[in-house]
């Protein structure tokens, strides 16, 4: 069977799944699933023989469930339980912000609000809190940003587990989640009394490529005129220290950052106007670096040339793993865009979905 592309799109009003031939112009749309419920986290788990699509509807009234599809998003079934704090913890789960792979095929990790990490070792049927980060001595001093106090990035990379917390900063475990330490040297926080606190940064997203274990990319909260080096960062020592790679971008403010699946030097961001979090001058563009951030090029062929004022949220962009990968992004105005050939030319896949929170894509056989 030829390769298929599957796109899981979480929106403010439910989940939509697109599927079609990996290079097809036309994709089949399924959904909405969990209609009316915000979906902040989806995950396409390709570690199993048959890929699974996971989604986390979070009803403002009825709480959160973990939903799993074993048929590429045709039918979903809830797992037996969702992450939850214990009654004596004092915290109650407000939202789920990230779902990610654990260290074996049945292990899943889940980042929640208020910022905490949960682990399942049975494919999501049961969950336990990871105390080493959730009850870290810093945890009760983290503060929420505008989006809430959330653990949004879960990244196994270079033999470590990296977490992004807003506003907690970047934490890493190098001993199988027994302990976590803040690793934020060079990660600034213009909203704190000191520019470089030990922790407490408003990290937006972290990304990496497995072929370069020492390198990570980070979108940190930037957009401060007096210090344009806060927002787009790279680490060359496995996340221990970070330096700016924002030179050449129209703004160092943005939410997502993603890496090309076949080239660790190629990274994508979408700079936004810092005061409005919308496309600068109403002129949307993805920016690509093929030199690990040394130089950037604007990619806007096919995108609106003017009067476009949307936002891409932190999980609203992804790159598929096809032979010639496409860059996909969803907007807060409900458009799903696909940039073929690594973003060289964009086409609008869907124009009137609800506001898009997250986009995850995979090419499967």
């Amino acid at each position, binding site marked *: 069977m030829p390769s298929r592309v599957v796109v899981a799109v979480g929106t403010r009003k439910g989940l939509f799944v697109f599927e079609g031939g990996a290079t097809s112009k036309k994709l089949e749309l399924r959904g909405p699933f969990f209609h009316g419920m915000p979906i902040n986290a989806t995950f396409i788990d390709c570690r199993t023989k048959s890929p699974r699509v996971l989604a986390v509807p979070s*009803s*403002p*009234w*009825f*709480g959160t469930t973990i939903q799993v599809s074993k048929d590429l998003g045709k039918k979903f079934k809830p797992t037996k*339980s969702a992450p*939850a*704090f*214990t*009654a004596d*913890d004092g*915290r*109650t*789960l407000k939202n789920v912000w990230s779902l990610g792979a654990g260290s074996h095929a049945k292990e899943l990790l889940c980042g929640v609000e208020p910022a905490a990490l949960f682990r399942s070792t049975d494919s999501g049927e049961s969950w336990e809190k990871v105390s080493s980060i959730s009850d870290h001595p810093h945890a009760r001093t983290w503060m929420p940003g505008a989006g809430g106090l959330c653990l949004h990035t879960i990244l196994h990379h270079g033999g470590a587990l990296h977490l992004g917390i807003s506003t907690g900063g970047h934490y890493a475990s190098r001993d199988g989640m027994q302990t976590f330490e803040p690793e934020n040297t060079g990660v600034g926080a213009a909203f704190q009394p000191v520019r470089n606190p030990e922790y407490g940064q408003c990290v937006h997203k972290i990304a990496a490529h497995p072929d370069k274990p020492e390198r990570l990319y980070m979108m940190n909260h930037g957009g401060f005129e007096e210090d344009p080096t806060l927002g787009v960062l790279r680490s060359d020592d496995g996340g221990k220290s970070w330096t700016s790679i924002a030179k050449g971008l129209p703004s160092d403010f943005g939410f997502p950052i993603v890496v090309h699946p076949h080239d660790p030097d190629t990274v994508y961001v979408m700079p936004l106007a810092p005061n409005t979090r919308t496309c600068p001058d109403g002129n949307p563009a993805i920016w690509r670096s093929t030199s690990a951030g040394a130089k950037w090029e604007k990619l806007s062929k096919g995108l609106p040339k003017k009067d476009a004022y949307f936002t891409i949220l932190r999980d609203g962009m992804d790159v598929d793993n096809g032979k010639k990968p496409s860059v996909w992004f969803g907007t807060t105005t409900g458009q799903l865009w696909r940039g073929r050939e690594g973003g060289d030319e964009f086409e609008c896949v869907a124009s009137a979905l609800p506001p898009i929170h997250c986009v995850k894509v995979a090419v499967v056989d």
Partner: protein
Amino acid sequence: MSLASPGPEIRVAIPRALHSLCEFSPHSPHPELTLRGADVRALLADLLRRYPQVHVRLCDERGDPRPHINVFVNDDHVRARAGLDTPLAEGDLVSLLPAVSGG
């Protein structure tokens, strides 16, 4: 609160969105659960024991109703009475209703 005592039998109305979790008879004109509790807190504890899959959708980890779930005893919101300590009597109707949203 009287968790040790089964308390009076109370009719409990559940949001329609959760009816599929309650195994109501499809022919029942007024689908309601019958639970026991001397007060609302004990009633919610009985809901947890007998219908955990419904309780988790209506109450948070501490056992409190979720922020957008309103609890009425007959015509009164419990916040106008004694909150979760509002006493219950045989024949009372407790309604667990999602808050209105929108304009």
